[in-house]
Every structure is written in C-alpha cells, then in structure tokens.
C-alpha cells in the first residue's frame, strides 16, 4: 500500500504516518455475546448457587455470626419441616397464593383488554395513557393506610394492594406489545376482507399473545413481592404474616424457612408461565 502510494508523488497521503496497529486481545470468557463451552457454563451456573450457600454454611458453622442473626441451614431445615408437619406452612402458603391469584388475576383481567385497547386505538391511548402513566409512579405500599381506611383490615384491602401494584404496569406493557404488531400485517388483513373486529381477534391478539404472557410473567413476580408487603400489616395468616410473627419472637430460623418457601413458589410460578409462553409462542422461536 505504502509503496504504491509513494509511486504517485502527487498523492498527499504518501506523507501521512502509517496508522497505528491494534492487537486483538485473546478471546476470553467475557467476549460479548459469544457462547461459552459447556464446562464453563456449568461451573458458573453451579457456582452462582453453591458459593452463597457455602458462605452461609461457613458463617453459621464457625459462629462468626451469632445463630440469632444467621441460623444454620440445618436449623432452618428442621424448623421448616416442623412447620410443614403441623400444617401451618400449607395454610400460610395457600393463603398467600390465593391472594396473588385473586389480586393479580383481577389485574390481568382488567389490564390485558385495556392494554389491547390502548395499543390498538389512538383514542384508547390518548384517553388512558396520561392517567395510567401517572398512577404507576405511586407506590402501591403507600396506598396501604388508605386502603385499610376504605376497605378495612380484611382480605379486600390486601387484594386491592396487589391489584394497584400490578395493574398499571401490566396495562402499559400489554399496550407496548400490541403496538408492536406490524402495520403490514394489519393492512394485508383488511385487503383480504377482514373487518375491524376480525383484525383485532384474528391478527392483533394472536400476534401479541406471547408478548402479553411475557408481561404477565414479569408482573407476577411483582405481585408476589406486593403480597408479602400487604401481609406485613394486620393479617392472621399468610407467609408475610408468619415472618412478622417470627420476628416478634426473634425466630430467625423461621423467617429463613418462610423466605425459602416464598422463593420456591415464586420460581414455580415463573417456570409454569415460561412453559405456557413457549407453547403459545412456538411460532416466534
């Protein structure tokens, strides 16, 4: 290149210094979006669970942290077993799960049609987006005192917190998914003779379904968070209530056991929704 340039004396580029060379670094584990070997993947996956667990075992076994603050895994397991045998755990878990099903279920029933409306019609967006965009920034937990005044201490106020905490986000996320339906798909449906309702039912909804389930999955996790918060106030059963009670008696082992159960149920919900998503969205794979 340089020699060829030099021959053309008039070419000013001949006087330029050569461009610096950059060496390409070796491929590492942290190469962007590059698949890892199966071995490295396994090590990282196992490690992400094993390392924190090992820390827990070591810290509690050596007595570095007193058992009142950090109970040993064995103690947590035996307390958990005891709670399960007495039937207390099943009642608490079911009470909490039922609240999620009712509160979040209601939120889904309201937010999915509303989101479809907002994503499909500009009128729907203009009418609802401003108010929902505002409401979603009000933390659901801040509504607890108000809801207790309005609805009392019983179930309705807890269901309402779950509803408020999830309905706005799920609406906006659904609307976003629906807005992603390609224009060409809608236009071509009209040219094939579809009427507005048919375009909605046979094109917009089926195309959006996998994305809507994704939104539900994300917000189910949020619902699961809110239910525990809701139960911290004035309950007589439920996993959140169990944690508050255990705290009064300094039963950290019980708190840990309940946290494990909350985690397990949460993961189960997520896996179940993921399976549904895979089945419904096979075409998008």
């Amino acid at each position, binding site marked *: 290149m340089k020699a060829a340039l030099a021959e053309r004396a008039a070419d000013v580029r001949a006087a330029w210094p050569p461009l610096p060379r950059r060496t390409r670094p070796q491929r590492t584990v942290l190469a962007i979006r590059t698949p890892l070997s199966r071995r490295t993947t396994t090590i990282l996956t196992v490690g992400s669970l094993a390392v924190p667990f090992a820390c827990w075992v070591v810290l509690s076994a050596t007595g570095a942290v007193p058992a009142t603050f950090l109970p040993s895994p064995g103690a947590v397991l035996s307390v958990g077993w005891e709670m399960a045998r007495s039937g207390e755990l099943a009642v608490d878990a079911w009470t909490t799960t039922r609240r999620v099903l009712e509160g979040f279920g209601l939120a889904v029933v309201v937010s999915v049609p509303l989101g479809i409306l907002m994503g499909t019609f500009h009128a729907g967006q203009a009418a609802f987006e401003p108010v929902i965009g505002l409401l979603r920034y009000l933390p659901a937990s801040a509504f607890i005192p108000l809801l207790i005044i309005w609805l009392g201490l019983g179930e309705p106020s807890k269901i309402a917190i779950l509803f408020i905490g999830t309905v706005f986000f799920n609406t906006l996320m659904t609307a976003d998914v629906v807005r992603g339906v390609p224009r060409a*798909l809608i*236009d*071509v*449906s*009209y*040219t*094939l*003779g*579809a009427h507005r309702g048919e375009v909605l039912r046979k094109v917009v909804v089926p195309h959006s379904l996998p994305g809507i389930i994704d939104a539900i999955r994300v917000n189910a996790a949020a619902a699961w968070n809110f239910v525990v918060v809701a139960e911290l106030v004035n309950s007589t059963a439920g996993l959140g209530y169990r944690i508050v009670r255990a705290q009064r008696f300094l039963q950290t082992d019980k708190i840990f056991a309940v946290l494990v159960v909350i985690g397990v149920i949460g993961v189960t919900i997520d896996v179940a929704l993921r399976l549904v998503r895979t089945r419904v969205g096979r075409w998008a794979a």
Partner: protein
Amino acid sequence: MGRVTLELVDVSMDYRLRGKEKRALDSVNLTVSPREFLCVVGASGSGKSTLLSLVAGLTMPTSGQITIEGHPITGPGPDRGLVFQAGSLYPWRTVERNVAFGLELLGLDAAERSRRVDWYLAETGLAEVRRSLPRQLSGGQQQRVAIARALVCEPAVLLLDEPFGALDVQTKEDMQLLIRQIWRDTGTTVLMVTHDVEEAVFLGTRVVVLASEPGRVAADLRIPLAEDRSLATKRSPAFLELRASIEDMVRAQHRGGVTA
C-alpha cells in the same frame, strides 16, 4: 366483467411532511383492462407505492376517483389482493392456514376451503411445505404464500408492491417466471410496482413510467414482446432496446438525476 378492470381518473394525493403540504401524485389517469399485466416503474419519490396503496383502498386520494369494475373504491377489500415486499405473513399460521385466511372470513366450510387452497398451493409450488410455519420458509417461498393468499380470494386485480425486491437474483428470476406462469394460468389482472426496469419489461404487457415529485404518468407503453417469455427473452435485442429506452426515461424523470 366489464371492459375496464381498474380506472383512475385525475387522481391526486397530498400528504403533510413536517407541516408542509407535499404532492405525492398529480392528476394520474390510468386504465387497466382485464388480463393485463401492468408494471409501474419510477425512481424513488415517484409515488409508486402511494399509487398502489390508493388502489388497495388503504389510503384515500385527495381528489379524483378510482373505480374497480365500475364501482368506486371506498376501502380495502379482497377484490384487490395485495402482496408486499416482505413480512406480511401471519407468523403463527402454517402455510395452508395463511392461504386460507380470506376464505375463512367468507365463511367457507373446511372442504370447500381446502379444495381451493390445494389448487393454489399446487400452482405456486407450495404443496410440500403446506404445514410449515413462515419462519421455516425461504424468502421466495414466503412471497409465494403471500401471492397464493391473495389469489385464492379471486381478486379482480392482483396488486404487487415490489414483491421480489428483497430476494437474491436467482430467486428473483425464478419468481418472475412463476408469476408469469400464474398470470397465464389464472387469467388474473396484475398491477405491479417495481423500481427494476428489466423486471417490468420482462413481466409486463404494458409499462407505465412515473415522473418524480410529484408523481405523474410520464409514459405509457405496450410491450410488444411475445406472450411466451423465458430468461432467453432478456437477452434478445428487442428486449434490451426496450429496457434501455425505458431506463433512460426513468433516469430523465429522476429529480436531480445525473445523465450519463
């Protein structure tokens, strides 16, 4: 069927761009007869796609009238089947269910649907992939599905909007031969928009050249080539001459175009 399939009378179309009125089409007059294969060519900005969108009924003209078999167009409908460049298949429907969409809307029973769908799948060479999903098909196969889906509704005119523009050269030629054959087999009328002059001359019985900004009909030519065309036609002197002269017209109409 009347003597005229499609008629545009003094059709103009304005649109607003950043607050400014712009004219996309300026008093376009065009008549398409039954069994014609009319190709519209023009540089970008000539309003080719706007023209097709107006005929499809997806947008309404600012002034002028468009009639299909004597009836004014008031909106989109299956009498004007539309095929886009790409990405208009229902990704969750198999090939056969994509093709059957329009017939489902008409309320045809399953037996009647499959009889008709089968014929068009065979005609477009899709019989073997009938149960595949769109994402499992090549680009050429996807366009065949889109064509079959429009044709099964027996449109008065088939509208093609740069239908082979996203395909590689070999696939594009295969598809050109296929659409010629479909046109002859089915007796359908075709209105196709393309920027590829070679394609227009090879496929069309008639070629219309649009001028740019605003779009106007600059030339309207019959293509005097034989009905029976093959890839060899593209190398014949008559073809090459036609192609060169139309390319010159397109270039001359292109705003700010550089003449060789």
